[in-house]
């Protein structure tokens, strides 16, 4: 897009800007109304940082969410982007509609564990299958925050509610589920690990299909207590990163050097390259079976495995599978959408 959005207020000294010349302020949103200390707000901050660093043009970003504390957060970043806060559990469908209608938009979806793993599990499953170009962030606290602390489907067995009730049901692991479903980018992070989260977000933005990021995001109001398995304390103690992620976005100005070493590199079609340097050096994020096995093992060890768990950048995206032109379908000229008189006449003749 050639037209640059005018800066909101002319600054006397040139402020620090990103590579498309926009200040950080242009990536911020309205003031959060979440509880002080909520993990979701930390994620919002990293989304702002990632979008700023990646230099996405705000007007080309569309934000989608369902319902929940987590789903409120798109209002708290990137004011200058379009936002669609839809209905509970259905973020993937509104995102799908908007992004097939206008594939030139960058889609950022924010959902909760209730929004995704309970009411919205069907739409989650199908958006992953389709590989829609969308960054899909699950702000995962194991509870329904907005309706005051009921268990969600990601709550661990034995987790305790504030009132003392114990969860008896096996949790749904959105990451292993996504991998099973053919997900092409599956990551887990922790809202408290800001550096890792930002890098994963940047990698997700560069990914061309659906990027699922399950971010453990403690609910300080209903979960941060003894017995909860999604509290800060628990998460900090049980978080084992699979590898350090070095992400080097490819921009025309900055051709990055990729350091050599015994690491696994995955090239992305947009030119960017992901580099995985793992604590576990043998971790191969392109090996589906291993990824699932490692996740399962971490469950056994009661660890939360974080990092980019699986990637497959080779799989075609939904847009490619649809055989669409790739241009926006929203404002095509009449002659492209209304066939000519002869076409109608021909059809009429065939019906006589």
């Amino acid at each position, binding site marked *: *897009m*050639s*037209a640059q*959005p*005018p800066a*909101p207020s002319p600054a006397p000294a040139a402020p620090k800007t990103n590579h498309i010349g926009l200040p950080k302020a*242009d990536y911020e949103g*309205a003031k959060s109304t979440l509880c002080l200390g909520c993990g979701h707000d930390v994620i919002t901050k990293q989304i702002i940082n990632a979008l700023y660093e990646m230099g996405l043009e*705000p*007007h080309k970003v*569309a934000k*989608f969410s369902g319902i929940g504390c987590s789903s409120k957060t*798109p*209002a708290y970043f990137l004011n*200058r*982007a*379009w*936002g*669609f*806060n*839809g*209905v509970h559990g*259905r973020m*993937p*469908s*509104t995102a*799908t*509609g*908007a*992004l*097939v*209608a*206008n594939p*030139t*938009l960058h889609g950022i979806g924010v959902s909760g564990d209730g929004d995704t793993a309970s009411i919205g599990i*069907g*739409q989650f499953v*199908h958006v992953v299958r389709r590989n829609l170009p969308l960054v899909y962030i699950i702000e995962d606290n194991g509870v329904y925050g907005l309706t005051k602390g009921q268990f969600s489907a990601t709550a661990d067995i034995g987790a305790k509610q504030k009132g003392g009730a114990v969860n008896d049901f096996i949790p749904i692991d959105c990451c292993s589920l996504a991998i099973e479903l053919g997900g092409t980018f599956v990551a887990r992070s922790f809202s408290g690990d800001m550096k890792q989260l930002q890098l994963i977000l940047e990698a997700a933005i560069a990914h061309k299909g659906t990027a699922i990021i399950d971010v453990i995001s403690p609910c300080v109001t209903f979960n941060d207590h003894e017995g909860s398995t999604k509290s800060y304390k628990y998460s900090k103690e049980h978080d084992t990163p699979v590898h350090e992620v070095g992400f080097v976005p490819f921009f025309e100005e900055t051709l990055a050097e990729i350091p050599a070493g015994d690491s696994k590199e995955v090239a992305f079609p947009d030119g960017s390259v992901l580099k995985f340097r793992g604590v576990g050096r043998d971790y191969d994020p392109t090996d589906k079976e291993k990824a699932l096995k490692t996740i399962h093992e971490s469950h056994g060890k009661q660890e939360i495995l974080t990092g980019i768990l699986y990637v497959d950048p080779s799989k075609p995206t939904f847009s490619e599978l*649809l*055989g*669409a*032109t*790739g241009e*926006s*379908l*929203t*404002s*095509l000229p*009449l002659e*492209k*959408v*209304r*066939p000519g*008189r002869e*076409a*109608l006449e021909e*059809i*009429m003749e065939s*019906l*006589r």
Partner: protein
Amino acid sequence: MSSVLTETTSRAGASSEVVANDFSLQVATANGSGSQTANSVLMRSIFRMGVPVSGKNLFPSNIQGLPTWFTIRANKDGYIARKRDLDVLVCMNPETADDDVREARAGAFVVYEKKLGLENPGRKRDDLTYYAVPFSELVVKITSAPEHAKLRKLIVNMVYVGVVADLMGIDLEETEKAIAKQLKGKPKAIDLNITAARLGLDYAKANFPSKIPFRVERMNATQGKIIIEGNAAAALGCVFGGATVCAWYPITPSSSLCESFIDFCDDLRIDPVTKKKNVTIIQAEDEIASIGIVLGAAWAGARSFTSTSGPGISLMSEFIGLGYYAEIPAVIFDIQRVGPSTGLPTRTMQGDILLCYFNSHGDTKHPVLFPASPEECFTMAQEAFDLAEQLQCPIFVLSDLDLGMNTWMSDAFPYPTSPLKRGKVLDADAIAKLKGGWGRYKDVDGDGIPYRTLPGTPNAYAAYFTRGSGHDEKAQYTEKPQDWVNNVNRIARKFDTARTMVPKPEIQDPFHAPAGILAYGTSHYGSTEARDKLAKDFGVQLDYCRLRALPINAEAADWMRRHDRIYVVEQNRDAQLVTILRDEFPELATRFVPVKQYNGLPLDATTVIEGVLGDRDQQKQKRTA
């Protein structure tokens, strides 16, 4: 029931009297036996002889085995409603043959598979005329080749077409042309089917010197006309109406709309340069996702639609309320059927008027269009997109199984001449001129319709945040009571604007009578036929108003005020439209007399005649009491 209502009073009952181009013929087969092609050929043969004709398929919710009936009505005066009484029966299905014959009217003619033994002692009715044809033996003659053996079940259907052609005077040449059309591009199949039709014709010629007195005679009433199902017509309307996103989930009787859209788009929406599609069609995981996709796409600025039936509308309801409050254009086709669950999903009904008009939670109401013919499916589909984008709201198009899936004779569709009306959309330049003064939900023009921008518009002030209930004029979050009241009141104003924009009713007031019939959608056919008969045979003159949309506009309201007894014909138990009329016009409430049919079958004229005469009897009794 009073005996005056027998449909056949003035008609041929005895085999001597010849009736030209006025009969109802029913073919009974088993679902999955492949009779569809034969039935279409039979119908098209009559159509090609210039005789107005309609075809209705009564089919089970099953793929193979359960009974299916196909009814063809030919009528020189152009009446194409379902008729209660049948004149000619073709009985091919052993499962239903006894019932079919038992229910036949006295004087009817029965062509049947000889093996069924319908004339055996104890079974034969002596008020019917029978034609026994050894179909299964005949067909072996032309399918003796081993590669044809498995085609027998299929081909036997074309044999009855030949028999009927001879017995009723259908020109076999037209039948052959109809076969060629139906099986275009399959020369071997064409040959075999023509042979089968000739076989039937020759058999009847040689064995039945006395023919059926219901005759097909050439006339010239179908020139230039087409035969099409309502769903295919609506799909064409979406193509020519500029729809670029479609999301759907299969459900009878709606699936063929989106499937036709897919087929048409494969031809008509391929970019000549890139050979890629300038349309996106998604078979979603359910109806909730379908409508979510449609709203997302429409929010982004695409003309988008879905098609479903009642159960799907139920699932979509939450999203439709969001569409109403977030003011997002969407076109939703509801091809109504009997619901819920299993049983009669393949039967017709006008059962979703209230479900759609008031769909979703909170204060909601939506424009609803009522197409009554394939041509209107075509034109109203286009109007629906214009209205949705102009009014920024979901628009329902309420068709039904009868209209959507049955074959109708129609005028050829007119090529649309007006541009797409895309409503109040501001581009980057317009936003720049407004210098931040734009408010997504501001009523600038006093018609309740705000201005919107489309995602991607390159201006820093163009973007806004969309949510359901809590927003002020500038789309900022608010829970203030007055902001909410202002917003819902503006949306109510918008609905009044809609009242002036939706399609106007069709009004026929030749009698300037004190009473009239009001109908909508497919209730039109039985109603207008009844109205003519009431005038001709019973001296009851009625005016007519066909409602083409909700909310009720001034023209329809005036018509209702002019008539002090209004027979409202609909195909549901609860008189759903009457509920709306009584609510919106309480001062007229006692004028509305519901006339209803809700047995899953398309409306017949007799039902309407009975309803009207019954009410008049009652009124008379009241006056004399």
